[in-house]
């Protein structure tokens, strides 16, 4: 078995391995994720758009793929790299092997490389552009192709992943073992701005009693307000938040008009709307084991994370913003609250999927905020 697939990084580093999934040639930012489970959720998370994802856990595909563990309508990664892809998954929910799943969704996979070496390289040199290919193996050709790829900084790639037309979301979280849905009484009308939203956020909103309508990222504040929402949700999404100016403007216009809850890119957009600034992390946070301290309660949450950009803590110093959550690994900002505007957001993923459920209470915080508004409006 000779190598039949390669990964070329922008600094010239080459990894040769074996192709799995679809054959093809794609550019993207090369990043790593340290979750040991949840690869299907990762593959279908729109936040990974234009990223070539390496799993640090070497054995991937062990439980196959199924129709339930998806986080969006399709797969978004540009490429998927593992140490060993499992050809014989074993799980009662398995429907398709990982390789077939990638092939069916036209995602290029690469296995059999020293993924730890790649991860260490990214850790020390930073996330970088790369090209994964199982069709063209000539490094010089790939180099040229890679040179043309602009990378993520300064580009709005939200527009590539957002939906075109708004629609209501009705599905709630369901119990994996019994299939039973956990449904709350519909009490709140929520507009969710889709920057690349993960379905589990929508499911959790429904389970918390939200009547959810999901709208395209470019929807204006006026259009949002025309729906008379009890709350607005700013979703996660891929890439650099700074160039997504329309969303920042919309958010600015919505501040104070309705309670706002943001996650990940939504958190960055809220922060930018409140006058903050963002910057790119060296290699980002991607995994399901990041400790985040809730500064209000002192409790530590083990969180699911996926972000390459981050809100600059100092940029919010003189703003009317409370810092609510902090990352204990690197002391970066993980959550803010603007009490005056009834807006709050977190950098990490309380919807989990994949990852721990420690932060699920934030959805409750959102409904409480809406309760407060509703009570205020009634009196």
């Amino acid at each position, binding site marked *: 078995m000779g190598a039949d697939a390669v990964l070329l990084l922008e600094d010239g580093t080459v990894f040769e391995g074996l192709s799995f999934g679809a054959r093809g040639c794609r550019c993207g930012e090369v990043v790593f994720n340290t979750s040991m489970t949840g690869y299907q959720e990762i593959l279908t998370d729109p936040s990974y758009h234009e990223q070539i994802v390496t799993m640090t856990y070497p054995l991937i595909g062990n439980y196959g793929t199924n129709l339930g563990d998806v986080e969006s309508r399709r797969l978004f990664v540009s490429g998927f790299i593992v140490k060993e892809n499992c050809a014989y998954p*074993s799980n009662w*929910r398995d429907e398709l092997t990982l390789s077939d799943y990638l092939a069916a969704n036209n995602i290029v996979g690469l296995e059999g490389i020293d993924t730890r070496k790649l*991860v260490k390289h990214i850790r020390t040199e930073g996330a970088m552009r790369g090209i994964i290919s199982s069709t063209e193996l000539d490094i010089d050709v790939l180099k040229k192709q890679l040179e043309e790829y602009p990378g993520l900084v300064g580009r709005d790639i939200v527009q590539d992943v957002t939906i075109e037309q708004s629609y209501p979301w009705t599905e709630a979280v369901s119990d994996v073992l019994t299939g039973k849905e956990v449904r709350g009484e519909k009490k709140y009308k929520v507009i969710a701005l889709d920057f690349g939203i993960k379905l589990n956020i929508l499911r959790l909103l429904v389970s918390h009693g939200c009547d959810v309508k999901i709208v395209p990222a470019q929807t204006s504040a006026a259009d949002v307000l025309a729906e008379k929402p009890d709350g607005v949700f700013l979703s996660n999404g891929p890439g650099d938040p700074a160039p997504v100016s329309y969303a920042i403007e919309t958010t600015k216009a919505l501040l104070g008009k309705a309670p706002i809850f943001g996650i990940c890119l939504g958190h960055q957009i809220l922060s930018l709307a409140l006058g903050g600034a963002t910057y790119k992390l060296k290699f980002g946070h991607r995994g399901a084991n990041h400790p985040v301290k809730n500064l209000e309660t002192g409790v530590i949450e083990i969180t699911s994370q996926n972000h390459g950009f981050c809100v600059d803590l100092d940029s919010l110093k003189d703003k009317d913003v409370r810092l609510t959550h902090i990352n204990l690994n690197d002391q970066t900002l993980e959550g803010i609250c603007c009490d005056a505007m009834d807006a709050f957001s977190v950098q990490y993923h309380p919807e989990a999927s994949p990852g721990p459920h420690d932060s699920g209470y934030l959805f409750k915080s959102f409904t409480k905020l809406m309760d407060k508004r509703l009570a205020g409006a009634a009196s």
Partner: protein
Amino acid sequence: MPKRTDIKKILIIGSGPIVIGQACEFDYSGAQACKVLRQEGFEVVLVNSNPATIMTDPEMADRTYIEPITPEMVEKIIAAERPDSLLPTLGGQTGLNTAVALAESGVLDKYGVRLLGANLESIKRAEERDRFKKIMEEIGLEVPRSGLAHSWEEAREIVEYVGFPAIIRPSYTLGGMGGNVAYNMEEYQNYINWGLSLSPINQVLVEESVVGWKEYELEVMRDGMDNVVIVCSIENLDPMGIHTGDSITVAPAQTLTDKEYQIMRDASLKIIRAIGVETGGSNIQFAVNPANGRLYVIEMNPRVSRSSALASKATGFPIAKIASLLAVGYTLDEIDNDITKKTPACFEPTIDYCVTKWPRFTFEKFPGTSPELTIQMKSVGEAMAIGRTFKESLQKAIRSLEIDRYSLDGRHIDAGLTDEELKERLRINCWDKIWYVAEALRRDVSVDEIFDLCAIDPWFINNIKDIVRLETKIKAVKGHKLDAEMLRQAKEYGFSDRYLAQITGVSELDMRKQRAQSGIRAVYKTVDTCGAEFEASTPYLYSTFEDECESNPTKRRKVVILGGGPNRIGQGIEFDYCCVHAAFALDEIGIESIMVNCNPETVSTDYDTSDRLYFEPLTFEDVMSIVETEKPDGMIVQFGGQTPLKLADALHTAGVPIIGTSPDSIGLAEDRKRFNALVDKLKLRQPRSGTAMTYDETLRIAEKLGYPLLIRPSFVLGGRAMEIVYDEESLAGCVANAIEVSGEHPILVDKFLDDATELDVDAISDGKVVVIGGIMEHIEEAGVHSGDSACSLPPISISEKVLEEIKRQTKLLALGLKVKGLMNVQFAVKDDEIYILEVNPRASRTIPFVSKAIGVPLAKLAAKVMTGMTLEELGFTEEAHRSHFCVKEAVFPFIKFPGTDTILGPEMLSTGEVMGISDDFGLAFAKSQMSAGNNLPTEGTVLISVRDQDKARAVEIARRLCDKGFKIVATKGTCIELINNNIPSEFVLKMTEGRPNIVDWIINGRIDMIINTTVGKQSIMDSFSIRRAALDNRVPYVTTIRGGQAVVKAIGSLAQRQPGVKPIQLYYQ
């Protein structure tokens, strides 16, 4: 929340002797606790009866009590020390049970001692199965249907709704002792009755069987702020129905989707909160139905466990250390992650490799018992292997076991086994099932069918199939010349050089060369808790076959220490103790220490113990790869028992600089001819002997020497296949066995010295000066394996003159063998004549015991000597004399092996040891018996039944017991002898003589102690049921006449005064 200020002095209870289900993992956890708590400025008081532990080293705690771990003795320690707190969660089930007893009896309240970590209420919620079950139901989790029985009547009602097969679990027993699966009413009744008798509170749980479901474990940590993290998930390769300690287990969980894993994680958080473990680690076990994912909670250990040790080694997250810090008030975010230094311990480790743990069994030592695996643990140790893939870690684990297997090959499987028989084998839960799975795959049995037969998850079977397929491909290569690509793939799959060499028909060295030429060499990756997300500062390494090597060897002067591998009978914690001391010693003299070992339970595989840790199998290939990477200045092979010694020659030949006593001298001591020549030259005496390769040769020697004879293979430890033969009749079977075990080496035939006194001497030599560490007199006569014999330091019955002569001979031998380091000599003394039985120029099993007895760290000194220092430089030129008596007693696993005889012989059967200390021999012996669980009576009825040659001494024993007010009962021959000597004794029938017989007496609780000696096959068989009944009914028993004499002395001392407690630090003053 910072450190609590209301805590000053903490009592830690250790786990006592190594037994099945409770091994050196608790030395690891206890040693970590002592270390970190003292660093934090607390005063630490430790009690543990096991001298072979690092934690009982005098510098580990402020006060170290090597005393029996009974509530009465611990109360005395509490009264003397007045600790304000007790940390009960680090000493295994023994520590926990003792703490519960002290809390319930009001002792803790009386002395104002708080329980740290877990309070009484939460311990009981976790441990009492009916309460646990109720709590699980309250928090919405499912448990198997079950009921609690305190009698057979209750049990019968329960099985009505539980159904068959039914699981029986006695409450509060170790390692699932007494656990069983009953498939019918008859089995059920047997198991219920046994279980009720084993449970200290006479309670058993009867449970719905989930045999065949998948088994998982989660290691959970909680701090005082209610932060909870999962340290590690473990998936058992073996399905439910096999005790997790006996299962091959893999970390992390492999076949759970994130959704299912999070359900388990959520459940674990709920459980630890509901049970109320305030701080520290817990282990929670789950069963999952492979067909629909249905999840049952099986059990929870509200303490540090064997799995915690495994999880710590598998992830690099030191559970016991962190549990200790949490217990004194810290929260997880206040504690640093040792490995990254920059991030906090409040996170969930993520790993980028696969870990396989494989249990080590010693069924060959207990031929009478069924080797089938059940829910009661039977393994005596374990090996762990790390690889980048499951296939690699699996194959590394196999060769880590040191059972002379290096692959999944079928050479141990009967070639004539039909497919049907093979399939039948797959249904039975035996320790070597994996080899049958591989064989079935070789015969093209489908994965589905194998799964149906053995319920091992298809994911594992498919991985094994990959291995088997590649093996087949390699075997099919023409001319057996592997190309580089296939060779690389084989190495990536974890194939050993040794096996590849074997199937391609070359030598292992040639295979190694071939690999080197193709540029295929092991690289080392770091265990870093975080999947490379952060930089690791701790060199905790494992090998794999990939691109990048992270070993970064230093340029310091460095010495590699080879560890002992998995625990087994004959080679256990004592050797790990020595290896750890070697690491400490090197550190003290500024030499870098590099530890190589594969036993996850040990202190040696704590990344804190040495400068660099290689978690690797102890084979020539794996050690050589490390040598080539590290280029050490020296290697210590003499401390880890037989495992590294076996490699010494090959390593020496390959140019590895072995320091200390040379492999040649070690070989000389094992080589009968060369050794005889040395003994002759030194004008010393040995029992007459010969060596033989065949039965006929043995017979000729037997005729020359006369019976009795001691027959044994060479190059084995723990008296494997060693037997005393009294006549030609029993010679044949014994010789066949010895020849098989001995392999290409000859078997040794010695004239056996009947009724001699055996002595063990440990000494240290720098090549010029020899210093005696200690002389131990065995309580049992020569012929009982030294590891199984109780012994006293100093000797109790040997004259000063003989002792002086023994010292002189020891020194001669040390110089004659050019020993540089440790040496152990076994002598027999008969009628004041001294015979040399055996010389081992290496660390012996008794080194920790002697070191504790005399207060001198012999292993540490020896390691320094091996690096070139002299004893004079080290200030140890005179034997240390102490005025107290130390008695070592062995502890046996017989209770775990129904059907096994408890009689002692030349083959070692004990798993662990305890030590009793006192200024009086009798009390020291009494304490050793207490620690070993033999509660000597001070009144009541003693049964005496002895062989003819012991009758005279039995009379003396009986007389003294009579004087103390004991009633004597005896079997016919003994009874007549006693009455003839005017000792009142009641006659009792033997088993074969009718009823009610002696076993009825024992079962009915009419006997308080038994002295039973026997000789000859028939009498041994006849008296078997006496010993077994004694064991099963917890009646103290002695099987040697000298043991009986010591017991009588102990009872005499106990009648005069109660045993007190005293820390070892005071004994050395």
